[in-house]
Structures are given as C-alpha cells and as structure tokens.
C-alpha cells in the first residue's frame, strides 16, 4: 500500500482558525458598523476558500497535509487533508462564500442579523474542521462545533415553531453526538488509537465492535438524515433563513455522510463490513431513505419542506453509493457529494428569492412566477434538472458512475433504485418548473406588498407580459454561479472535480 507522504504544514489549523476569529471579530465589529461586518464575513469566507485551494500542489500527487496539536484536550487535535478532504473543504468554503454574499442582501432589514453572521462564520469553521480532521476525536470536536451554532441559525426567526424545530434539532444532534462519543471511546478502547488514515483500526468482530459501528451509524445517520433518524430535518430547514438552510442542506448533512465514508473505509475496512453483514444493512437503509425521502417530498406543498425531503432522498443516494463498495460507485458517490451540494444550495437560494420577492411558500401559488422571476426560476430549473439527472448536467455524471458501480459490485438491482430516485425527483421538481413557466391562469393581482420593483428585463423585450421583480444583483450572482457550475463541469472535457473524485476513490479503496 503506497503510504501517502505527509506534508507537515500549519495550513489546515490556519484555515479552521480564521473563521473562528472572524466570527468573534464580526460580532464585535457588527455592534457598531453593519456594512464593515458584512464585508468582513465575506472576506473571511473568501480567505478560507483561497487557503483551501492553495493546498492543491500538495494534493495533486496524492500527498496529505498534516498538522498535529498534541496539547489541546485529552487526546490532542490533528488535521489530515487528503484528496477527499481537500475536495469537500474547498467545496464548503466556496458555497459558504456564495451563501454569505447572498445573505448580504437577503438579511437586510431582518432582526438579529449580527448574531446570524457571527454564528454563520463559526459554523463554517466547524464544517471545515470536520472535513479536515485527522482523527476521530478532532472530527467529533468540530462536528459539535458545527452542529451547536447551527441551532442558533435554525432558531433565527424566534417564532414558536422555530424554537420547537431548534429544540428537536438540538436534542437529536446531542443524542447523535452522544452515540458518536460512545463509539469514539470504544474505538479508543478497542484499538488504542483514533487516528484516521491508517486502514482497519478495528478488525476483530466482538460485541463491543458491533455496538461501536452501530453507534457510528446512528450518530452519523442522524446528521445525514438517514430515514429512521431524519425527523429533525424537515422541520429545521424550512424554518431557518434560506442561506442558512442552503448551507444546512448543502454542506452540513454531508458531514454525516463524510463521517460514514471515513468510518466505513478507514476505521473498519471493507472486508470487516462484508464479513459482519453490515453492508447489506447499509444498502437497505439507503434504499429506504431514497424511496421514503423522495416519496414524502411529492406530498409536500411548502417549497422548502419539499426541498428538505429531497435532501433526504439525495443523501440516500450518497449512502447507497458508499455501501456498494466498488471503486466506480465510490467515484460517483464523491462526485455526487459535489453535485448535490451545488444543486441543493442553489435550489434553497432560489427558494429564498421566491420567498423574499413574492412572499409565497406554497407551490400551488407559483403559477406564472417564471415571468416575475425569470433568472431565479432559470437557475431553479437547471439545479432541479441536475438533481433529476438529465444528461448534460452534473447529476447525470454521478448517477451514471453510481449505476456502473452498482453493476461492478454485482448488484444491478440498486441501479434500479437510482433510476427510481431520478424518476421521483422528476415527479416533485418538474411540476414546480411547469407551473412557474407555463401556467398563465392566475397572475393578475399585484405581487407581495412593499417589494421594490427594479425590472431588469424590460417589458416586451423578449415577449414577457409583466415587468419582472427580479432580485438584486447581489442575490442573483451566487445563484447563477451555482447553476452554471452544475453544467460547466459536466460539459468541460477534463471534469476537474470528477478527476479528484477518482483519485479519492482509488485512495479509499486501497
């Protein structure tokens, strides 16, 4: 096994530290100067993105960036960024930058904005730390550092159901993290170390190792929204402000899946899982998650709740890709991390614009808003089609790889599950697009009160009847970028994230 050579730099620690300090600075600055704080947050997100990307030269030849801080806490912290960690942390930083940029305008005039920005940046540090953790203990620490401030984002509206949703989120997250804590201690007890990157920490199938894997599964399942443990997700996401729920859906639930990836492939190893029959359990759970998530999504008429259930469905696909345990499935899986993150955050940002501009949440009232919000709905359509898996877009690439993986793993039936997932996605996304663009029946009364009319597309320029009430440029730019990246990577000859995904898969499968 070719041992990845390690580059001991302090880069990962720096990347994690900047948002933390930034959050405190932002809160303190925000008490006096609003705009300075806004741009400070954007700057911090940008800085972490740049630093993440700057690690590319180390990563290219399959190297690993390592930092050890033995002093802190009982077991000391360590960071270890390999290809997978690099891809996901860059993705996180990028989407965080876009979301922060988007919320500059979205949060204008809202209450508790100072708190929102501080905790948003703090959660960024948690997410980055989780993806770059070098051992299970650091993973657990930053997992908590991401989950708890996120509760403050969920509770932002301070309405009754916001508080209820946040409390449910908190209790399930804490319950989950306690299971993780138990497995962490048990792993330390069984193998004497919790470091990632060394293959097969636990290989002997004892009752305790069984309990440990169950603990990992439950804790990371709660975060990833696996079906029996997903109850908090459909309540928390609609309640949070749109950029926050974009990040919640786009990035944070991915940490759960990332954790499963590390645990399955590095702490336990494939033959252990196959020997003890865990892979069949995982496969069934992911299929149930796909079907259940997508099916319920169809019945939801609140746009954000529908998107939340769609996230559960997509997470099912990711878990499925992981459990197939073949290299191509893993490539598709890692790429699907990327595709789903981009598409899902774009969808939530669009939902935010729709809510902000038209005040509508219920899908049945979306007749004709395509004309009112042409650019937004265009982005919405592109992202939706990505998740459905239409060929020219990212979604198709990952679904294609996943299906090939299913065949490689000798379980073609699961390719059918992916097909079913695509069809169900279509079943709940396309109606929205259709009503938005082609339903001319209603659309006579004026749009929501107090909405600033700044028409970009003049009336009659390309045959639109009504002047659009499109969002401001600040909100549109991130959405357009995300929508484009859904398409650009799939069309471009050397699909950069896909190549990284292949490298990551090869590294994991060794």
């Amino acid at each position, binding site marked *: 096994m070719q041992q990845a050579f390690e580059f001991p730099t302090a880069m990962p620690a720096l990347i994690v530290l900047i948002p933390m300090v930034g959050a405190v600075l932002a809160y303190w600055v925000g008490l006096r100067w609003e705009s300075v704080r806004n741009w400070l947050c954007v700057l911090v997100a940008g800085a972490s993105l740049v630093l993440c990307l700057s690690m590319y030269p180390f990563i290219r030849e399959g190297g690993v960036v390592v930092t050890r801080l033995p*002093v*802190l*806490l*009982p077991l000391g912290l360590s960071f270890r960024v390999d290809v997978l960690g690099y891809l996901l942390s860059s993705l996180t930083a990028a989407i965080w930058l876009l979301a922060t940029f988007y919320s500059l305008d979205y949060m204008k005039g809202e209450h508790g904005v100072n708190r929102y920005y501080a905790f948003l940046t703090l959660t960024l540090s948690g997410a980055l730390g989780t993806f770059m953790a070098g051992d299970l203990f650091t993973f*657990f*620490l930053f997992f*908590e*550092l991401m989950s*708890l401030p996120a509760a*403050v984002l969920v*509770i932002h509206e*301070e309405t009754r159901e*916001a*508080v209820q949703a*946040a*409390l449910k989120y*908190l*209790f399930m997250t*804490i*319950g989950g993290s*306690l*299971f993780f*804590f*138990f497995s962490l*201690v*048990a792993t*330390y*007890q069984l193998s004497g170390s919790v470091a990632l990157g060394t293959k097969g920490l636990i290989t002997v199938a004892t*009752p*305790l190792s069984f*309990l440990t894997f169950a603990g990992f599964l439950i804790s990371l399942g709660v975060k990833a929204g696996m079906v029996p443990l997903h109850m908090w997700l459909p309540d928390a996401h609609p309640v949070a402000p749109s950029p926050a729920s974009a990040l919640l859906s786009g990035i944070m639930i991915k940490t759960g899946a990332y954790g499963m990836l590390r645990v399955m492939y590095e702490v336990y190893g494939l033959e252990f899982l196959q020997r003890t029959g865990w892979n069949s359990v995982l496969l069934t759970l992911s299929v149930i998650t796909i079907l259940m998530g997508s099916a319920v999504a169809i019945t939801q008429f609140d746009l954000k709740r529908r998107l939340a259930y769609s996230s559960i469905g997509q997470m099912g696909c990711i878990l499925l890709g992981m459990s197939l345990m073949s290299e191509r499935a893993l490539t598709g899986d890692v790429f699907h991390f990327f595709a789903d993150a981009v598409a899902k955050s774009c969808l939530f940002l669009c939902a935010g614009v729709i809510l902000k501009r038209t005040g509508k949440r219920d899908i049945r009232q979306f007749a004709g808003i395509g004309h009112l919000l042409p650019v937004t709905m265009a982005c919405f359509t592109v992202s939706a089609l990505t998740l459905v898996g239409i060929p020219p877009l990212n979604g198709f690439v990952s679904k294609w790889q996943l299906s090939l993986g299913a065949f490689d793993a000798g379980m073609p039936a699961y390719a059918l599950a992916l097909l079913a997932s695509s069809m169900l996605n279509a079943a709940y996304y396309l109606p929205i697009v259709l009503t938005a663009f082609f339903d001319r029946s209603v659309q006579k009364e004026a749009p929501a009160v107090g909405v600033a009319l700044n028409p970009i597309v003049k009336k009659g320029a390309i045959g639109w009847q009504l002047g659009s009430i499109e969002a401001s440029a600040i909100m549109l730019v991130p959405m357009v970028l995300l929508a484009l990246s859904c398409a650009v990577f799939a069309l471009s000859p050397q699909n950069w994230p896909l190549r990284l995904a292949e490298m990551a898969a090869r590294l994991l499968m060794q």
Partner: protein
Amino acid sequence: MLKHLPVLLTVMPLAGAFLVPVFGRSGRGHRMALVTVAVTLLAAVTMLGITAGGEVLRYRVGDWPPPWGIELRVDALGALLASFFALVYLAVTIFAGRDIPGELNPASVHWYWSLLLLLLAGINGVVTAHDLFNLFVFTEVFSLAACGIISIRDRLDSLEAAIKYLILSAVAAGCILLGIALVYMVTGHLNLSYLAAELPMAARLYPKNVLAMVALLTTGFALKSALFPLHVWLPDAHSSAPSPSSALLSGLVVKVGIVALIRLFTTVFTGPVIAALPVPVFMIVMAVGGIIFGALFAMTQRDLKRMLAYSTVTQVGYIYLGFGLLNETALTGALLHIINHALLKSMLFMCAGLFIHRTGKRRIADMAGLARHMPLTMSCFTIGAMAMVGIPVTNGFVSKWHLVLGTLHGGQPLLAGVILLSSLLSSIYYFPVVVAGWFGHPASPPPPGPEGPPSMVWPIVALASLCLILGVWPHLPLRLLGDVARTLLGR
C-alpha cells in the same frame, strides 16, 4: 512554617469563624470571611505545590506519634481537592457579599459568615483527616454548618428542609459512630493506617462484625453525600437555601462524603475479606438508580433551583459509578468529576441566584428572554449547561470521557449507555432553559440598571472561564489525579 500547613488549613477558617461574632457585627463579617478564605486558598495551593511531586505531608497534632495522637495526612488528592474547594469558596463568598444582605434579616447576617467559615473548616478537616473519629467529628461540623446556612433563611420551606436534612444527617452520624465503635471493638485502633494493618486479622476472627461495620460506614457517608435512595433531603435543602449556600451545598458539601468514602475504601478496606463484599456492586446499582431518577425528576421540575438540585443527584450518581468500578480510569474520572462538578454546579447556582436577585422570579417559565438584559450571566449558564451535557470544549466532557472509558475498561458497556442516556436527559432539561433565555420573549419589562453588581457577576464569569480552561487544558489536574488513582488502587 510550611510543615504546619495541614493543620492550619483547618484552624485558619476556625479562627476566622470564631472572630466573626467578636468583630464582624457591623458588616465587617464579609470582609473577614473573604480574607480568611483567601488565606486558606493560599495555604491549599502551596500544599498542592509541595505534594504535586507525589510526596505525602504527614502531620502529628500535638507531637504525639500516630496510634496515640491524631495524624493528619495530605496527599496530592487532598491538596488538589482543598485548592479547588477553596477556590470555589472564594468565588461564592465574593458573590454572597451582595446577595446575602438582601435575602436574610440583618440580625443574622454576621452568623452567615461565621457558619460559612465553619463549613469550610469542616470540609478541610475531613479532607485532611487520617483518623477515623477525627473524620467523624469534622463530618459533624460540616453537616451542622451546612444545615445552618440553609435554616438561616428563616422561611417555612428552608426551616422544614433544614430539619429534614439535620434529622437524616443525625441518623447518618449514628450509623457512622456505631461503625466506628464496632471497628474499635475488634481492632483497638482509630488511625487509618494502623486500622488497615489490624483489619485483615480482625476480619478473620470477627467476620460479621467487619461486615456490619463496612455496611454502617458506607450507609452513613452515602446518606451524607445523597447517594440515590438516600437523597430525599437534597432537593428541598438545596432549592430552599439562599443561593450562595445552595452553590456550596451542591458543589462541595455533597462531595465531601464521597471523598471520605474514597479515602476509607482505598486506605482501610483493602484486605481480601472486604474485597469479597459486594459493596462496589451496590454502589454501582445505587449510582445507576440515582443517574436515571435524578434526570427524570429534574425534567419535571418547574423551579430552576429544584431542577439544579435534582441534577446534582445525577452527578453524584456519576461519581459513585466511577468510584464503584474500582479501575484506574474510572477512578480518575470520578475524582476529576468531583472537581468539575464543584466548579460547574456552584457556578450554575450562582447564575440562578443572580437571576432571582434581579428578577425575583424562580420558575423556569419566567426565564424567557432573560439574556436580553443579562447576556453575561446567561452565557455563563449556557457554558454550564454545555458542560453538564459534556460538550467537547468544556470540562464536563473530560470527566465524562474518563468515566465512559472507565466503564469500558470495567467491561460494562451498559453503564456507558446509562451515562450517555443521562447526558441526553440532562440536555433535555438544561437546553430549553438556555434556548428560552436567549430566544424567548420576556413577559415583564426588564428592571433598569446594569446586569448585576460586579461583585456578583465576576465570580460567575471567573468560574465559567475556569470550566472552559479546564476543558481545553485539563492536563494539570488530569496528570495529578492519574498518579493518585494509580497509587490509591495500587495498594
């Protein structure tokens, strides 16, 4: 002068306490108490410096050799506990300066300071004692003083709680004294080391006697430290007492009984006959009961201080669980949890005290929106709540880590499940208060003026930051307690 520190640790608070009725009448009592506690803290910390290297300070009161005279012994554990207890004491005394005159009638305020110092003397007496009867006498001192600072509030519920506490503590004293009589009858010694030498032979000659003695002593000290079935006095006592008193009661007084038991079980009851007795098993069963019932009862409470009191029953359960497992990691976890919980629970009670001092309301429902005009106190309460649940950055996490690892070393994953379940339960009754505090809407407009007098806010902030510091750099107490646990179990 350093040679005399072990005895001065007890005598200084005593001298301070005796001086308060003489000079402390017109409000000077608080300053005298502060000075005395500060000096005691200094003495404890210097002793910690000396004993950190593993050396044990032996002190013969009256220059009489051990079996005849009384010997005091301070090891790293004793010094560490004394230092942290004195530290918490200093914070609570500073806090009480502004809180007590409001809560008590002026005639008995100077007695409060005297009783506070007597309680500290009793605690230090038990921590440093190496003689069984001396341990009993100082246990009585701190029990009566603890009861005194509850009943001083002169309201119906305080008096009733104090009487119930005193009567149960008298029963415990009876059990302990009968235990001492039985052990003296068969061994003829009172000094712990000589007792340990005589006990194996006595256990062979009079096995039932030793069984009864161990049972009586364990029951007595368990009753004093509110182990589960014997905890009935704790919720009333800790919730009806003045806030600084409940901070001390929940933080320190409950722990001293456990410290005495740990000292007994690791120095005296170590022979093979006693190892056969199922006492640790009973302790674990009671501890599990305490953990579960404490958490369940705490969830149903509407009064904030009663909720904190029931949470103490759970935390005492943790400590007994760690102690009952009798393996090195679990014992380290238990000892560390004694210190962590002392810091945490006293800080939480002081926060509750400040809330009540400001708004006059005690019910959890009235805590809504409190953070809007008391942000600092509420953030300290949040740190405390996070530590109680065991979130990584706080000190609660470190002791929970060792306790869970200890249960796995002991081969009992089920107990680990109990600890984690109760952590979840404690999040279920702590976090609604925190969430309501930060994001709720206050019913009545907040009173004018700053968050609270600085002498009340700063001790809370100091203890909260100490909890965080111990959470991130726990190596000082951890290394010391690791060696202590090894030596205690090594024998």
